[in-house]
């Protein structure tokens, strides 16, 4: 069941397995523009399916997918679980407390254990940057990074791109890519893997990305990655097509990074007044979970015509279905994707 030839953008990427030649999805940094577009296009069919009453196919029937989450998560875990189940796979969640896996060989041992259970794909979230890559080296099946430390969260960036594409198309605008668009990401950039993955993804799709945060929450040298750096939120918002708000990751902060939530809101909170100054149709995004009243006001978060926050969640399931489908094609022996291992 190869679907790439039915895609409206089949000409944008090579045929068959060459469209996505990676075994794992560890980061946006490893992907070419056409590979990102391929995954987005693949997700469209799942967006459609997920809007049907019967949201189920048997594409991955008989496969075992393990969601190994070494860090707390609700929405990402749920999203991956639903994605796997809707594709017909047997999904198992392993929710290891962070503290119990920090010592010694345990992480590698866990990887080897999961591998021995013959998982067909492993989805991993871990608190340390690079941890998913480390596990990927030790297992024989595809590994999907569901967030590693402050490094990458590729499916979040892909779902953000898909949500934005849909929002733009609904307005009758071009959503194929984001050339000419200005997108502001504001918040705790330093501790955010979402910011890094989105910076890479949005730039690959042609957007200009502005990052906005107080200096203490802005990573050194991020401008080398092509971002425009702002400390003044109002200046960053000027002429922005999209503003993506990030929460303060207080659980990753050691020491004081901002004087108070109240003061942070004063400088960096997305209020209705600020949004109005940005533009008449500036879209609002947030990867969640939101801290209403801190980085984003309820009034803004709930604006039906501007906020696409719930759409992001919807697209998350579709994107994860696309990733699971594409990455398991080799193992399933899908025509054009090589023999089963």
């Amino acid at each position, binding site marked *: 069941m190869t679907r790439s030839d039915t895609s409206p953008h089949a000409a944008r990427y090579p045929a068959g397995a060459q469209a996505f030649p990676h075994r794992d999805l560890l980061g946006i*940094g490893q992907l070419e523009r056409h590979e990102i577009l391929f995954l987005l296009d693949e997700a469209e069919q799942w967006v459609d399916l997920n809007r049907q009453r019967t949201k189920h196919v048997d594409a991955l029937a008989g496969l075992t997918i393990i969601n190994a989450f070494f860090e707390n998560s609700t929405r990402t875990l749920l999203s991956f679980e639903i994605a796997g189940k809707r594709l017909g796979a047997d999904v198992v969640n392993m929710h290891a407390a962070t503290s119990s896996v*920090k010592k*010694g*060989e345990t*992480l*590698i041992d866990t990887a080897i254990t999961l591998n021995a259970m013959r998982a067909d794909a492993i989805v991993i979230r*871990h608190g*340390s*940057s*690079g*941890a998913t*890559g*480390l596990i990927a080296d030790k297992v024989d099946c595809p590994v999907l990074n569901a967030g*590693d*430390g*402050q*490094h*990458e969260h590729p499916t979040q960036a892909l779902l953000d791109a898909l949500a934005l594409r849909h929002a733009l198309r609904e307005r009758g605008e071009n959503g194929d890519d984001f050339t000419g668009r200005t997108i502001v990401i504001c918040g705790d950039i330093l501790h955010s*893997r979402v910011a*890094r993955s989105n910076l890479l993804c949005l730039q690959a799709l042609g957007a200009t990305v502005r990052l906005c945060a107080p200096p203490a929450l802005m*990573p*050194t*040298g*991020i401008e*080398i*990655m092509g971002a425009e750096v702002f400390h003044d939120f109002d200046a960053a918002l000027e002429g922005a097509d999209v503003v993506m708000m990030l929460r303060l990751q207080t659980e990753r902060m*050691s*020491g004081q990074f901002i004087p108070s939530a109240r003061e942070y809101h004063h400088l960096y909170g997305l209020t209705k007044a600020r949004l109005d100054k940005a533009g008449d149709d500036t879209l609002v995004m947030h990867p969640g979970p939101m801290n209403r009243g801190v980085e984003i006001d309820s009034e803004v978060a709930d604006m039906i015509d501007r906020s696409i926050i719930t759409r992001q969640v919807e697209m998350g399931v579709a994107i994860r279905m696309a990733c699971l489908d594409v990455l398991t094609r080799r193992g399933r022996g899908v025509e054009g994707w090589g023999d089963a291992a």
Partner: protein
Amino acid sequence: MKQASPVTLTNARLVTPEGVRESSLRMEGGRIGSIGWDQGEGETVDAKGKLLAPGLVDLGVFAVDKPAFHFGGITRAALMPDQSPPLDLPSRVSYISKSGKPDFWVHPLAAATRGLEGREIAEIALMREAGARGIATGRKWISDSGVMLRLLQYAAMLDMPVITHAEDAALVGDAVATAGEYATRRGLPSAPAEAEAIAIARDLALADMAGARIHFRQVTTRAGLAMIRVAKAQGQQVTAGVTPAHFMLSDLATADFRTFARLSPPLRSEDDRQAVREAIADGTIDVVSSGHDPRGPEDKRLPFADAEPGMAGAETLLAMVLALVLDDVIDLPRAFELVATNPAKLLGVEAGALVEGYEADLALIDPDKPWIIQSARMAATAGNTPFDGQPTQGRVLALWKGGVPVDL
């Protein structure tokens, strides 16, 4: 084991402080008897034109790992107090000072503070009696300036060098990388490189006040080296060291989260790497040491930030310094000043140079012999080298400790 009878090494290229010269060297009673005189009785060994150099003196290692040291031509090492338990009691110092004999000498460095916690000064005078040759702050900087000043004053009174780690603790926090493009791309907790210069600035000022001898074990940034250069020009008693990682590698080597490149201080920018090479060339850096810290998979097969810092460096120290000679950064006599003469001087031991009357700690070296550094095939207790797979050249052919040949 004492040297039983005199041995003359003939037909060798001797690396002396004055230069490299073809000559003979006679070992007698465990010491260097005479140079350039090969008529003595007893055994002769034909060096076949190979390089005869002082055994390396490795200043600031974390483990007594004899096979690795011997492989690397190292005959003495100053052991860091970061042991388990720390070297903060005379009894521990006394025990460890004998631990390598007879074919390897360990010079313990006394912990500056109890438990290396940076708060209370340890019994340094008693540890000196027990064999400590210097004082070290350990892997960490002493963040309390009052403690550091009193330590330096005490060390000055005892005429012992203080070996310090130069990274401002508050700036570093839980960082595992140098702030910059690579740390940002990989999402690694990072600290600005300036943390080093800030620590050096304070410690230079305190050492100057106290009249103490201070040695910065690793100076790895352009800004830090500039401060050492100025202090030296002003006549301060300061020396600086570095390990090969910081003149061979930059933070690019941490790509793919390779934990063998997780070091303390972390690898720096390419510009800082160049600055270290310049400082080795112009004499700002006095000592190159291995920082030998073998770490097994339980410490290294982890996500980058969770892994312990450190590299197994004893086996590659000589080859890396010889690479500086090949690159025309330094000449051969200067190379052995860095790895033998200067560290021996700092420790106050009569070794580390081919000088009549000094300990006959000698290494016969083929500086051209090619080999490939292989993590899996190292003599060290663990193969955590950031140079895995790298071709290099320069190997020890034979080694003598106190005139007695060492089995390699």
